[in-house]
């Protein structure tokens, strides 16, 4: 069997060494669901700086990637909602953090555009609001749409339920959220999973993220949320 299609399994500590200062990093999750906690905690420990965080929200001050914000590792956040993390709001108000807020449906479509080779998407969301300012508005069949540009990252840290050795992924519950989209839109994709199975143990019919998109597999750890989500 060719070994190139077998995905390397690493510790979280080893995997996050691939992330360098100044990188753009997508992190999956919505609220506390579907966050790759073990990878995020390792990134906090690594202290990698000046990161551009692309995630739906910034979790909580002491939970998940919220910790990266508190730890001063983030220079810019692109998200749809940061209301649960007081530090994100405080640092933004103190002008210590750049914040780009994007409607959630637009956020995922921009990532999809980045991963699927599209030059952007046209969405009616935000027309007639401040979100429209500075963006190109295009009229199609009498209706106005905002042109939203693709979003990609150097690295995506995603969370799935199970992988096989090829990196094929299946998801569980509401942990799926942004993870499958992010798996398409980064140069390096690191997936944290509950279990790594042998080839054939995941039915091809059930695969959501094909393994060709995944570069590194990491088993989840036993922290409070990693073990419960």
């Amino acid at each position, binding site marked *: 069997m060719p070994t190139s299609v077998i995905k390397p399994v690493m510790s979280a500590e080893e995997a996050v060494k691939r992330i360098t200062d100044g990188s753009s990093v997508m992190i999956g999750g*919505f*609220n*506390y*669901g579907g966050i790759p906690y073990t990878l995020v905690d390792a990134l906090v420990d690594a202290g990698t700086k000046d990161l551009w965080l692309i995630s*739906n*929200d910034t979790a909580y001050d002491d939970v998940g990637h919220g910790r990266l914000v508190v730890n001063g590792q983030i220079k810019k956040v692109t*998200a*749809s*909602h*940061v*209301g649960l993390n007081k530090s994100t*709001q405080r640092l*933004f*108000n103190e002008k210590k953090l750049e*914040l780009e*807020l994007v*409607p*959630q*449906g*637009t956020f*995922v*479509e921009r990532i*999809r555009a980045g991963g699927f080779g599209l030059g952007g998407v046209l*969405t*009616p*969301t*935000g*027309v*007639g*609001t*401040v*979100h429209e300012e500075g963006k190109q508005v295009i009229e199609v069949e009498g209706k106005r749409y905002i042109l939203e540009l693709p979003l990609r990252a150097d690295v995506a840290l995603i969370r799935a339920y199970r992988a096989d050795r090829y990196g094929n992924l299946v*998801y*569980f*519950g*509401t*942990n*799926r*959220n*942004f*993870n*499958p*989209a992010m798996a398409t839109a980064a140069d390096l994709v690191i997936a944290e999973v509950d279990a790594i199975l042998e080839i054939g143990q995941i039915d091809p019919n059930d695969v*959501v993220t094909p393994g060709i998109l995944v570069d590194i597999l990491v088993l989840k750890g036993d922290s409070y*949320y990693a073990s*419960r*989500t």
Partner: protein
Amino acid sequence: MLPVLDEEIARHRIARRVAMEFQDGDVVNLGIGIPTLVSDYIPENIRVIFQTENGVVGAGPKPEKEDLRFIGAGGRCLKPILGGALVASDMSFGLIRGGHLDATVLGALEVDQEGNLANWWIPGKMVPGMGGAMDLVTGAKHVIVATTHCTKKGDPKILPKCTLPLTGAKVVSLVVTEYCVLRMVSGEMVLEEIAPGVDLGEFKKVTPANYKVSDDLCQMKGCELE
């Protein structure tokens, strides 16, 4: 003076009235706060499918045993109903933006007589972000605003024109507060129902928006059940 209501009574009055708007088979997204209470008041003779923007179609009640792998948008555990579906965010917002939702119920910082809604940002103070709200008000067939009539400080929320950044322009279908039901009809705000004990003159003082009083103005439905 308008009747002073206990906050809990006000919140539940609003939720009960909103729940009367749905039809059998409707797909509905409920926001955080008062909108969350709406699911407790769905009439027994209809079935409503609740959608949560983090990826549940057919969200059920809080389970006896918590499983953090199934949560709603507000982070509370839930159990998908039998026959429900779990989807990724692109599908979830495809459903929302694509017109597959019959209604969305949201709170408001401000709403105005043109049907504009502001509920995501107070410049210089609070910057929580719009989350899914801008997509929801753009895509859902009916946008129902469920809010207390005034802010905690007593300032009116139903205005001639929103002063805060908008979530959506001309998107609101219905406004339900503890004192009234206001419906947008052909671009005009119409007072259709008023709560018991509310004097229309006093009501006007806390409702600066221009609204028309319906010829069929009646008592706010559901108040008789309190």
